[in-house]
């Protein structure tokens, strides 16, 4: 298969029909992965379609670099309508499923309809089967992994699957691959469960043909050399995705007890979650995704105590924030266990801890009591209570079924003032803390998929030591500025949004790019253009590639305007980051967001995108400029274009 040749596999679960089609113009205009997935959704999904109805589509896609030796090109994008927000749902994972899918000859799989009974899909090169999954229903992700491998008789088969939470249509259910790699956010597991689809297994024996393999390998070699020399990435290889975060640094914001504190209050807490503890006490090894030199997937093993025997993969900085700071668990073994439990039940850790933290704060304030929680006492840091609630959420039992709705909907059910403590953006639970870093706050709040940092949020402190030359060259900025400066953050976020769209659509891991790793030893748009051109034989400049990134970002914005009715009013941070001065010490003591300054930053952000300030909507002129004339027509017919 040439690198430009992959097909779309379309699986109609309702009538068990399987068809194939060419990617066609979608590939030229949106590259692949997230870009093409979103294009299919916008074209095919009516705005009235409910995310959990049979009408919704679940689109799985890889990028043109995936399946080749391009460094860090392993990513899979899973896209659908978001059960939290009604806007775009889009989630992304690494591993080996994406490459395997391409080697089977497919770039995208569109799942539509709903199977009458539980099924799983087996793609064995060009042979595609819908198989019974009755015996897998109710199984955890780990059990499902083992069972399907045994059934197919191939330990190397690649899969994505849901756990019991997805089957029960828990809104925060995720899709897991390779035991503990999650396409976490946006409830993609709930959508998959609503289709009665337990798993997709794939085995490919083909190859991706590259027109100029010699020059392609030369570029691969150069990029590999850069990434290996990057000190930030070296730390990731040593410590895993957790990295080497020192929580005692006063710069580090935390989400302590549902964002009631911005700094960890006790030195003992800080000491308990020190990265060296995980490194020295639990590290077994590190592994990498397909062709990735970073090998940040840390394997931790617990050798004694109540969680003895647990081997878990991929502890993240997020997990420390979520289970440690947010839920007040300062026991490293319990943190490893709780995150692994979520992965086994198929629950996204961001959404799960979000709704749990809401419940615990409500209990703390006397808004809810044991009569609401099925008699369970909710005391911060009580690991036993967290385990019980995670199990009840996944099974949708009692209070767990209310939690399964996410904090916004759960608070609407419970009432009694609990709505105030539901920390969400656009209906999806919030993981990020937003007091200090303005580029982080802006990127998170305006994120098209509903309040997440992986769509343009900038952690500018990571780039502070760049020289003015490098700063100009890579980010087009005169200086990075202080993290709490509002100035200069809007252009930074706009640039990151485009770059992220490119990485997700080419199939690259964001960690290998200048989005996360400080340049010059990281992949920038020039590297992406060189890789794409050598891989596909289609010459493209970095500027042209960035225009595609802008196109994809506008496409998603248009989907949200059309499907979720979002306007400027949705692009504001939750009250807590504006009203509560909970940065209790350090250089940013008392720091929070100013709505007046936020408004100015938002104006600048919309201006840079060519979106109307008043509504936040893209204009016809902008959509036409980025090559989305037909999208402008669709919005125009729906009365959702700003007046000229």
């Amino acid at each position, binding site marked *: 298969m040439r690198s430009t040749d992959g097909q779309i596999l379309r699986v109609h679960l309702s009538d068990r029909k399987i068809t194939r089609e060419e990617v066609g113009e979608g590939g030229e205009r949106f590259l692949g992965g997230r870009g093409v997935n979103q294009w299919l959704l916008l074209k095919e999904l009516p705005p009235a379609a409910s995310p959990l109805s049979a009408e919704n589509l679940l689109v799985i896609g890889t990028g043109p670099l995936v*399946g*080749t*030796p391009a*460094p860090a090109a392993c990513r899979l994008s899973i896209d659908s309508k978001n059960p939290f927000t009604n806007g775009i749902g889009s989630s992304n994972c690494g591993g*080996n499923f994406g*490459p395997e899918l391409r*080697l089977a000859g497919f770039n995208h799989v569109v799942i539509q309809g709903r199977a009458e009974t539980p099924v799983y899909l087996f793609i064995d090169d060009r042979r595609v089967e819908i198989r019974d999954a009755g015996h897998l229903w109710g199984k955890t992700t*780990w059990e499902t*992994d*083992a069972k399907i*491998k045994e059934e197919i008789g191939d*330990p*190397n*088969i*690649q899969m994505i699957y849901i756990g019991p939470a997805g089957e029960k249509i828990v809104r925060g259910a995720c899709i897991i691959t*390779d*035991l503990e790699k999650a396409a976490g956010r946006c409830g993609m597991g709930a959508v998959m469960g609503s289709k009665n689809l337990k798993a997709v297994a794939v085995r490919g*024996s083909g*190859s*991706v*043909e*590259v027109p100029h*393999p*010699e020059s392609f*390998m030369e570029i*691969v*070699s150069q990029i*590999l050399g850069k990434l290996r020399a990057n000190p930030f990435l070296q730390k990731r*290889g040593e410590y895993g995705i957790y990295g080497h975060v020192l929580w005692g640094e006063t710069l580090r914001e935390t989400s302590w007890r549902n964002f009631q504190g911005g700094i960890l209050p006790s030195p003992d807490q800080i000491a308990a979650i020190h990265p060296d503890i995980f490194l020295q006490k639990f590290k*077994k*090894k*590190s*592994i*990498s995704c*397909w*062709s*990735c*030199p*970073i*090998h940040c997937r840390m*394997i931790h093993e617990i050798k004694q105590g109540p969680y003895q025997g647990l*081997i878990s*993969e991929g502890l993240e900085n997020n997990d420390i924030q979520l289970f440690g700071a947010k839920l007040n668990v300062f026991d490293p073994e319990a943190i490893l266990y709780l995150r692994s439990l979520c992965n086994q039940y198929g629950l996204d850790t961001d959404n799960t801890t979000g709704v749990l933290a809401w419940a615990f704060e409500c209990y703390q304030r006397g808004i809810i009591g044991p009569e609401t929680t099925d008699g369970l006492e909710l005391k911060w840091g009580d690991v036993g209570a967290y385990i019980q609630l995670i199990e009840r959420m996944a099974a949708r039992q009692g209070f767990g079924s209310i939690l399964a709705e996410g904090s916004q909907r759960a608070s609407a059910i419970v009432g009694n003032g609990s709505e105030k403590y539901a920390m969400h953006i656009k209906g999806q639970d919030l993981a990020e803390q937003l007091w200090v870093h303005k580029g982080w706050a802006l990127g998170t709040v305006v994120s098209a998929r509903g309040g997440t940092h992986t769509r343009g949020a900038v952690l500018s402190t990571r780039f502070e030591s760049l020289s003015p030359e490098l700063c100009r060259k890579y980010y087009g900025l005169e200086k990075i500025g202080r993290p709490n400066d509002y100035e200069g953050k809007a252009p930074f976020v706009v640039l990151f949004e485009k770059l992220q769209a490119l990485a997700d659509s080419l199939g690259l891991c964001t960690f290998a790019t200048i989005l996360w790793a400080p340049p010059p030893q990281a992949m920038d748009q020039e590297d992406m253009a060189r890789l794409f051109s050598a891989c596909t034989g289609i010459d493209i400049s970095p500027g042209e590639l960035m225009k595609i990134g802008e196109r994809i970002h506008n496409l998603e914005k248009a989907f949200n305007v059309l499907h979720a009715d979002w306007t400027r009013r949705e692009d504001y941070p939750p009250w807590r980051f504006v009203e509560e001065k909970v940065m209790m010490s350090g250089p940013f003591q008392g720091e929070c967001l100013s709505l007046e300054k936020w408004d100015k930053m938002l104006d600048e952000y919309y201006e840079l995108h060519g979106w109307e300030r008043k509504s936040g909507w893209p204009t016809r002129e902008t959509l036409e400029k980025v090559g989305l004339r037909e999208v402008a027509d669709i919005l125009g017919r729906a009365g959702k274009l700003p007046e000229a």
Partner: protein
Amino acid sequence: MICVMVCSFHHARRFDRKISSIEVNNFNKEREIQVHIQREAEGKRELCDECRGEEEPLCARYCAPQAIIFQGTLK
């Protein structure tokens, strides 16, 4: 998996794991990784010739987590 791909590049100037002299199995629950290097041709799989004609064995040069290290030629 990059080692598998670059091995096939050495043999045939394309990326095709069917012809690679290296097979990697790393998908069990304990995350044990098994690397099998073909010491004789078998089916479509080429014999490992320690990258004759290349500056150094490509699997060791490109191995993403630097798990494969070339220590010298077998007698």
